[in-house]
Each structure stands twice: as structure tokens, then as C-alpha cells.
């Protein structure tokens, strides 16, 4: 039975999540040197184009069709059978296609998140091949395991409200793999070297705005649960942004704009799996923990290990996603979401270990398959641009354009 309010809400949420990819483009684009800003905007936008088509042709089917426990198969390829009637296993009150396009935006932004790890040095042709293969062989299967009808992690009882595992853990680990094998950028004055911090702030604003659709929309209905997710999302982002600024103030003497917005994004990523299972006060604790742990990952651990995760895709999304998934196992409460489960703090220690198990499985799977895809694409397309192209910038060498003029 289609409900008009629910359908409007999901279409609106879809549009909000769509806006996150351009938001991410500016968030990342501001962080690179200006000779590479167009390359980042281009990678994000073309992900929106390429992966939208991927989703309709076969991605949605691989992820959500009722196949076996590991993947959905090709039953719904080309959207066959994905019509305007509800598919009750996923959402009983909205047209099946509304669910499909809402999920499409998740499938678009997840591979786009990885861009942060290899920004400023990947060849464009290799990028296209990489994200298409990654979406097909990493995102789609994991999405099926956790959210798909009959997925084996779903059957196990793992809780992931809006994508702590499916989106942030998978993208974060893929970021770590690509950054390790691609190596450092050349001729860096300092890391990070953002050319336009206002863009980073603009991107954060768009991401925070879009995240309401991401998390609240995952309730798949305009109801109380959606409101809980909405409020929890804002609470965690606020707590994380503020606490990151305070951490910097104490440790480095001054709170920075870049730090504060990074903290907000860490809070948003971390609360994502929890937003529909935890109370608002728990979300605040989650936000603060996100800020502390991601701060350590980005400011202390990364420089020690000397890997060049250009824009901290792993340090913020990977660490945040894993942390949020585990914290869901602590703070989840059936009083908030009766379809969920109680976490360790509500007397069900098993849930924590289910969450931990799911994280370990997804981390290992993502690591191995991303590595294979990376090597494969490297053989056929060569991942990294030449040293000369890298020094001239990807805008001129990959796209024959430049973002800014010097004179007039």
C-alpha cells in the first residue's frame, strides 16, 4: 500500500543524498592544490554519471535482488521487475523504484569517497575502470550481505542503519589500499596543502545537509524513526565538530576551520550506522568519540606511518565507519527501534561481537578484492600519471582545462 508522505520523503531524501556527491567534490576539491581541483570535481561528478548507469543496468540487481546469501544475481538487471508497486521485503509503503533510486545515491557516493586517498595522482582512464570494478565487486556484494534480502550478514543480525559498514568501512579500507600501493604525491609543500578552504567548508555544509537524507531517509518512511535518525545525525555532527576544535585548541594552540569541519564529517560518518538504533544522548557520545579517534588517526598515526592518504579518506571515513559500527553494538536500544536489537550497554553483549565480526569480514574482503582490482587496472591502464603530468597538475594534463586564471 503506497503512502504518499513516505514516497515524498524518500524522493526528497534521494535528492539530498545526490547532493552529497557534489558536496564531496567541493569538500575534497578545496583540499587539493589548485592545479588539481578540476580533476577532483570531475572524478566526483563522473562517478554520479557512471555509477547511476551501473546501478540501473546491473548494480541494483547484484545488491538487492533476492539471489543467494552472497549476491543478488541478475534477476533485476536492467530494472526488470523493479516497478512502481512496493517491494515489501524492503519497504512496504513506497514504490520499488523509489527504493532503488534512493539506494543508487549510496552506490554513487561510496566509490567517490575513495577519491580522497588517491587524489592528485591517478590517471583518469584508470579511475573510471577502478570505480566501476570496485562498485561491482566490492560495493554490490557487501551491500547485499548487509542489506539485501537473504544477505548472510543481515541474517546474522548485524546492525547498519545507513551504511557504516556498507559505505564508510568499505570505502575507507579501499582508500587505505589504494594510498599504500599508489605511493606518495610528489613536490608537496606540506600535507595537507588545501588551495581553497572556503570550498572545504562549503562542501561540509552540503554534506551535512545531505546527510539528513542519508540517515533519516534510511528509515524508508516519514515516521518517528526517521526523526530519531535526523536528530541523532545532527547531534553527532555538532558534538564532533565542537570537540575537534577543542582538541586542536588544547594541542596546537588554535582551533582551525579545517579541523572543525573535518570533525563534523567524522561525526557524521560515525553516527551513520547507529543513527536509527541509538538515543540522541548516545549519538552525542558517539560524536565525541569519533572526533577523538579520527583526530588521533589523522594527526598522530598517519604522520607516523608516512602513508599519503591525501584527503584522509581512511582516517575519517574508514576509522569513523568502523568505530560507528562497533559503537552501534554498544549503544543500540530496542526502545528506539524495535526492529533492531539491544547493544552491550542494554544487556546484549552478543550484538557487539556480531558487529565486530561483520567489520572484520568486510575489512578483509575489501582489502583483498580492492588490491586485486588495483593491480588489474594498473596492468591495463597504469594507475599513476607520469611524474611530469603530476607536477604540471591533473587539470591540464588529464582534462586540458584549468580552474583559475592568473591574469584577468
Amino acid at each position, binding site marked *: 500500500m503506497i503512502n504518499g508522505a513516505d514516497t515524498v520523503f524518500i524522493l526528497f531524501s534521494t535528492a539530498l543524498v545526490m547532493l552529497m556527491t557534489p558536496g564531496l567534490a567541493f569538500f575534497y576539491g578545496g583540499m587539493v592544490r589548485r592545479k588539481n581541483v578540476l580533476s577532483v570535481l570531475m572524478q566526483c561528478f563522473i562517478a554520479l554519471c557512471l555509477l547511476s548507469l551501473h546501478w540501473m543496468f546491473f548494480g541494483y540487481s547484484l545488491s538487492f535482488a533476492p539471489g543467494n546469501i552472497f549476491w543478488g544475481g541478475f534477476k533485476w538487471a536492467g530494472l526488470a521487475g523493479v516497478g512502481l508497486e512496493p517491494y515489501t521485503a524492503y519497504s512496504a509503503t513506497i514504490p520499488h523504484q523509489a527504493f532503488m533510486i534512493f539506494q543508487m545515491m549510496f552506490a554513487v557516493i561510496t566509490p567517490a569517497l575513495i577519491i580522497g586517498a588517491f587524489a592528485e595522482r591517478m590517471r583518469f582512464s584508470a579511475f573510471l575502470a577502478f570505480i566501476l570494478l570496485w562498485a561491482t565487486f566490492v560495493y554490490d556484494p557487501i551491500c547485499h550481505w548487509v542489506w539485501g534480502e537473504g544477505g548472510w550478514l543481515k541474517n546474522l543480525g548485524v546492525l547498519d542503519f545507513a551504511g557504516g559498514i556498507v559505505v564508510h568501512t568499505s570505502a575507507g579500507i579501499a582508500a587505505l589500499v589504494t594510498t599504500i600501493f599508489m605511493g606518495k604525491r*610528489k613536490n608537496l609543500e606540506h600535507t595537507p596543502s588545501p588551495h581553497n578552504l572556503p570550498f572545504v567548508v562549503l562542501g561540509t555544509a552540503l554534506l551535512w545537509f545531505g546527510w539528513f537524507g542519508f540517515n533519516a531517509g534510511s528509515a524508508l518512511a516519514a515516521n518517528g524513526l526517521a526523526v530519531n535518525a535526523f536528530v541523532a545525525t545532527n547531534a553527532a555532527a555538532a558534538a564532533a565538530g565542537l570537540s575537534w576544535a577543542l582538541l586542536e585548541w588544547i594541542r596546537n594552540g588554535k582551533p582551525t576551520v579545517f579541523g572543525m569541519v573535518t570533525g563534523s564529517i567524522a561525526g557524521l560518518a560515525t553516527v551513520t550506522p547507529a543513527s536509527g538504533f541509538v538515543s540522541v544522548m548516545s549519538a552525542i557520545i558517539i560524536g565525541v568519540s569519533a572526533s577523538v579517534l579520527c583526530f588521533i588517526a589523522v594527526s598522530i598515526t598517519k604522520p607516523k606511518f608516512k602513508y599519503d592518504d591525501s584527503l584522509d579518506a581512511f582516517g575519517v571515513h574508514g576509522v569513523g565507519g568502523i568505530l560507528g559500527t562497533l559503537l552501534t553494538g554498544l549503544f543500540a536500544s530496542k526502545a528506539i527501534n524495535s526492529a533492531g536489537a539491544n547493544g552491550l550497554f542494554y544487556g546484549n553483549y552478543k550484538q557487539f561481537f556480531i558487529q565486530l565480526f561483520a567489520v572484520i569480514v568486510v575489512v578483509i574482503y575489501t582489502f583483498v578484492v580492492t588490491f586485486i582490482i588495483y593491480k588489474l587496472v594498473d596492468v591495463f591502464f597504469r594507475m599513476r600519471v607520469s611524474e611530469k603530468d603530476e607536477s604540471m597538475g591533473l587539470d*591540464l594534463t588529464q582534462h*586540458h*582545462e584549468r580552474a583559475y586564471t*592568473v*591574469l584577468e
Partner: protein
Amino acid sequence: MKLIIAIIQPYKLEEVKEELYKSEINLITVSEVLGHGRQMGVTEVYRGHKETGNLLRKVRLEIAVNENFVEPAIKAIVKGAKTGEAGDGKIFVLDLNECVRIRTEERGPVAIG
């Protein structure tokens, strides 16, 4: 007194600065310029419209030095900026007539350092 003007690749600025500091030359002015030499510019395309021979971004350094610092400065710039490829840039050395430190109104060689 000499004025050294060097045109270098933008991404070589850090290395040149480092080399200059090693030679105890700390006073430099940096500006961004456009230009090309033998390297002959780059191709750009805007909405299908192709433009060839566009000017490339370069960095221009200006360094005023006393005679005994001229050779060290040139050596430092070459060491930091040289790749062996076309486009590495040029160094010009000019005579400098006068130099005034605004704060103290000192003039000549003493005002340079």
C-alpha cells in the same frame, strides 16, 4: 650590488627556497607569472574549442644581493630548479644602483642583507 631575477617551474619553488636558505640567502620576493620559452605552452580545450600554445604558469623570484652572494645564489637556484627538461627556466643578473631600507633609511650594500 646585483638584482637576480629567476623564472622557475612553480613546483620547484620549495626546493629552490631550501637551497637558498642553505646558502644563507633569506630575503626573496616571489610572484606568480605566465610565460613560455622553448617548451611552447600547453593545449587547453573549452567546450570543444581547442587552444594551443597557451602560456604556462611560472614563478618569478627576485633577490637583491651583494657581490659575494651572486655566485652562491645562482648555484642555489640552479641546484633547486634544474630537471634537465625544457621549461626549467632562466636566471637574469642585473646591476643594482641603489637600495634603501625603509625602516632605517640606510642605503647601499648595508641595506640589502
